C-alpha cells in the first residue's frame, strides 16, 4: 500500500547540475521524510519536514512541501558523483505506532 510516489523513476545528470525529485501522496500527513540509499545498502535519513513548514534546507538539500497539492520536492544543488543513489520519500503509515510508508524511489545517477 504505497502512499508516496516519486517522480521521475530515474534521473541522470552531470556533476555540478541540480537534481530535483518529486513525491506525491494521497492522504493528509503530519510530516514527510526523505531518505537516501546507496547501492545495496540500508537507507539513511536526510530530512524531515512538518506539515506546517513549506520549505527546509540542509546543506545542499532543499525540501519543499505543498500540502494543498499533496506533494513534496527534494532539490540537490551542485550535485556530486557521491550523490548517486536512490532517494525515497516516506509518509506516516496508517494507524498508530511508528510506521511509515515508503515510495518506490527515484534512482539518481550523477555523471562525473
Amino acid at each position, binding site marked *: 500500500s504505497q502512499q508516496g510516489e516519486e517522480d521521475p523513476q530515474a534521473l541522470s545528470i552531470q556533476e555540478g547540475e541540480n537534481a530535483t525529485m518529486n513525491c506525491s501522496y494521497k492522504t493528509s500527513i*503530519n510530516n514527510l*521524510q526523505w531518505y537516501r540509499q546507496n547501492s*545495496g545498502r540500508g*537507507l*539513511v*535519513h536526510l530530512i524531515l519536514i512538518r506539515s506546517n513548514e513549506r520549505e527546509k534546507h540542509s546543506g545542499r538539500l532543499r525540501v519543499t512541501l505543498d500540502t494543498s497539492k499533496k506533494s513534496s520536492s527534494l532539490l540537490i544543488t551542485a550535485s556530486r558523483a557521491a550523490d548517486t543513489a536512490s532517494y525515497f520519500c*516516506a509518509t506516516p503509515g496508517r494507524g498508530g505506532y*511508528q*510506521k511509515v510508508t515508503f515510495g518506490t*524511489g527515484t534512482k539518481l545517477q550523477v555523471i562525473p
Partner: protein
Amino acid sequence: DVKVTQSSRYLVKRTGEKVFLECVQDMDHENMFWYRQDPGLGLRLIYFSYDVKMKEKGDIPEGYSVSREKKERFSLILESASTNQTSMYLCASTRGGGEKGEQYFGPGTRLTVT
C-alpha cells in the same frame, strides 16, 4: 554513534530451509521493523514490534514470523524458505513517541533462496 546491525550481508539458502535474520540496535529504541525491498516495489513492511514480546503484522507477513525477546534484538524467521522470498531484507528502528520520525536502518541482508 547510532547503530543498527544485521547478522549477514549475504545469505544463500535452499528451498524449505528455516532461515533466521537477526537485527540488533544499540539506541534503546522501542520500535523495530523488518522490510523487504524488491525492484520496482520499493520497501514493504513485513512485521514490526513496538515493545519486547510485542509484534504487529505489516503489509506482507505471509511466510514470515518474528521474535523480540530483548529490546535490542528483533529476529525475522522464514519458517520454510521459498524462491519468492529471495530479496533484500532491511531492518530499522525508531524511538517511541508521538511523531512518526526518523528510522535508522541496518545495512541489509541480501537473501537468495535456491
